[in-house]
């Protein structure tokens, strides 16, 4: 690998600073007492405490999954802080936000001030364990949309939360989902009532600040009959030498004719160039296309985290429902990613599309793992999958593990995978036409990821393009 490529991937992480802010922090360690403490801090109803305790007891019986193609030392779950909140806890207006916190998010480019906000994007901001601010709440409430932190939703709309929480990802679904169900601290909640098209993009920004804290957020989005919403999430964390655990759960429910579009730009701290530090991103994301003609679309641009383990999935239960997954996963240095999707076709005439683009550089390892399952009743189900890998340099790895299970003779499933590269010859070709290697790399990467970037909302697409450029700076040439 030439020095230009090398130089291109080695851009410093820009979000690695720590905010000095007074926080209320629970002692390290996990027990039923920790869970009771979290629940008490949040004034939760009894049923939610029971939900947590049941999940915790189940978690104790489970084993960490061994099948992902990732390696990391054993996590000491007693060495993690499960609750950390900046003081004062919750605010009535933006004016009460700690100025230090405001400056933090300003630095990160996240608009917490409605006047300065990106036009048409409402933001919920999560700092370590709690939501610190949500913008445009009133404007959304005017059309009947509830967009707030999940803690607030538990207080204000307990019946809605109770009806849907854990229905898509059951509390014992997998090791990290069970852990999340036991200790989740905050997250976003949105509810789009029947027939309402959400007038703006909804967005949550996650920030881990405390060194020893884990982040266990829980997001729940419900789109009722005929409703539609586009939701964005972004994440960053400071640079620490130690690893922080992020084990989130996201549940989406789409009823008849509803449409949910969920986009992620994940830029958690990835560790340094020797692989020290970084976030363990062990996330369960699943959408349930419950109603007929419902539509759930996942788009992710994964560039951060030391380890990524996530499979945003769609359960296509409603007849004629549609699931989509568009992903760019970039790994560099010693990052490891085992990511992909599951498309579970249960209802008739369900369709799914998977487009996955993996880019590996440095000594990283990038795996696509996907499941397409066509159940016996899913007549005429269709799936199309395209999984492409690009390798930059000779020390990285790219793997593709697609599982295709078909139990219906009328189904049609197509899967294709290819590899491509940015090699000396490609770069030389660009150079001989006057184009610098940096521009060449950016053009090739953008071409490679085009089908995914097209799915992102405009501002995010621009962000994502820049982010990939930064992440790869130094790796090509």
């Amino acid at each position, binding site marked *: 690998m030439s020095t230009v490529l090398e130089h291109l991937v080695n851009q410093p992480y820009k979000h690695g600073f720590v905010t000095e802010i007074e926080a209320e922090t629970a002692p390290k360690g996990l027990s039923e007492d920790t869970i009771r403490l979290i629940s008490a801090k949040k004034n939760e109803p009894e049923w939610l405490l029971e939900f947590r305790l049941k999940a915790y007891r189940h978690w104790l019986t489970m084993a960490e999954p061994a099948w992902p193609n990732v390696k990391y030392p054993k996590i000491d779950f007693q060495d993690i802080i499960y609750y950390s909140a900046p003081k004062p806890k919750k605010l009535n207006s933006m004016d009460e936000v700690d100025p230090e916190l405001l400056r933090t998010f300003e630095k990160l480019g996240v608009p917490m001030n409605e006047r300065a906000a990106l036009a048409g994007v409402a933001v919920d901001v999560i700092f370590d364990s709690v939501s610190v601010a949500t913008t445009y709440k009133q404007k959304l409430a005017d059309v009947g949309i509830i967009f707030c932190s999940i803690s607030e939703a538990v207080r204000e709309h307990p019946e809605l939360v109770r009806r849907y929480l854990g229905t898509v990802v059951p509390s014992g679904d997998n090791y990290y989902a069970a852990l999340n169900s036991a200790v989740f601290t905050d997250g976003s909640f949105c509810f789009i009532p029947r027939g309402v098209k959400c007038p703006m993009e909804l967005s949550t920004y996650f920030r881990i600040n405390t060194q020893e804290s884990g982040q266990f957020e829980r997001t729940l989005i419900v789109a009722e009959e005929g409703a539609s919403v586009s939701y964005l999430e972004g994440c960053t964390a400071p640079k620490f030498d130690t690893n922080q655990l992020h084990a989130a759960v996201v549940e989406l429910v789409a009823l008849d004719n509803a449409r949910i579009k969920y986009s992620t730009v994940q830029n958690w701290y990835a560790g340094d160039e020797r692989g020290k530090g970084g976030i363990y991103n062990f996330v369960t994301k699943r959408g349930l296309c419950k109603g007929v003609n419902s539509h759930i679309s996942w788009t992710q641009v994964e560039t951060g985290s030391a380890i990524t383990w996530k499979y945003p999935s769609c359960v296509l239960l409603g007849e004629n429902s549609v699931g989509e997954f568009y992903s760019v996963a970039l790994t560099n240095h010693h990052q490891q990613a085992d990511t992909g999707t599951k498309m579970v076709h249960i209802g008739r005439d369900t369709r799914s599309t998977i487009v996955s683009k993996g880019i590996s550089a440095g000594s990283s390892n990038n795996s696509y793992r996907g499941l397409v399952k066509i159940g016996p009743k899913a007549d005429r189900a269709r799936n199309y999958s395209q999984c492409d890998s690009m390798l930059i340099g000779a020390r990285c790895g790219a793997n593709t593990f697609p599982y295709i299970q078909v139990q219906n003779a009328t189904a049609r499933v197509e899967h294709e995978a290819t590899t491509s590269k940015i090699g000396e010859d490609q770069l030389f070709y660009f150079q*001989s036409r006057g184009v610098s290697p940096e521009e060449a790399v950016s053009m090739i990467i953008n*071409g490679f990821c085009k089908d995914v970037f097209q799915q992102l909302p405009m501002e995010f697409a621009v962000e994502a393009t820049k982010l990939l450029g930064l992440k790869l700076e130094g790796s090509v040439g």
Partner: protein
Amino acid sequence: MIDPNASVLLEVRGLTATVAGVEILKGIDLTVRAGEVHAIMGPNGSGKSTFARILAGHPAYEVKSGTVRFEDRDLFELAPEERARRGLFLGFQYPVEIPGVSNSAFLRLAYNTVLGARGRDELDPLEFDDLVREKMKLLDIDTSFLDRSVNDGFSGGEKKRNEILQMALLEPRVAILDETDSGLDIDALRVVANGVNHLLTPENACVLVTHYQRLLNYIVPDYVHVMEGGRIIMTGDKALALELEARGYDWVVEAHKGRDKAAA
């Protein structure tokens, strides 16, 4: 067109080079003046393509000794993209495929970078589209090229046409075409010849690296050089190309050996 007073565009002196430790070029001398067409011919493995790629700055080769001046600059001090911006153009023998990158975006980026470096205004996509379509019409190249990825899935002939289109857009001072004619049918060959003939003015020059005389029926060279074993062993005019066509290369090689012996 030979004009002994025309300015020297490219001057190669005693060039030797290796790839992976093996000596490929063993002392090349060549002077190219404005307005001239040079043909470099020779059997396979004689070093013709290596010479062309070294001039463009391919990283696989190591220059051991000798100098190359490109107009008033030391060529080896320039990165490949700087050479291109100053007007050196290599038409590739095997143009690479770059899936996902749209050909029209690539052409526009190259055009704006190269012509921009010479003080020309950047063209926006619409302006560029007009320009490129005009060029394509002139060269008889199918406009469907614009909607495809760079060389991706192109046939051999299509790739070569795309090279000629790039040459026409970038208006080089010195164009080096590396076996651009090989494997082409007669129509594609005409496109290539047409492109070169459009380019030729008293200010520019062209170096054709070729194995066959065929292309020289369409583009009349001022000089024909025979390369063998990493050296230019004979230089003549168009008549030499015809003689090579009729008699092959062996007699030149023999004659050269004879001369070497006589010298020794």
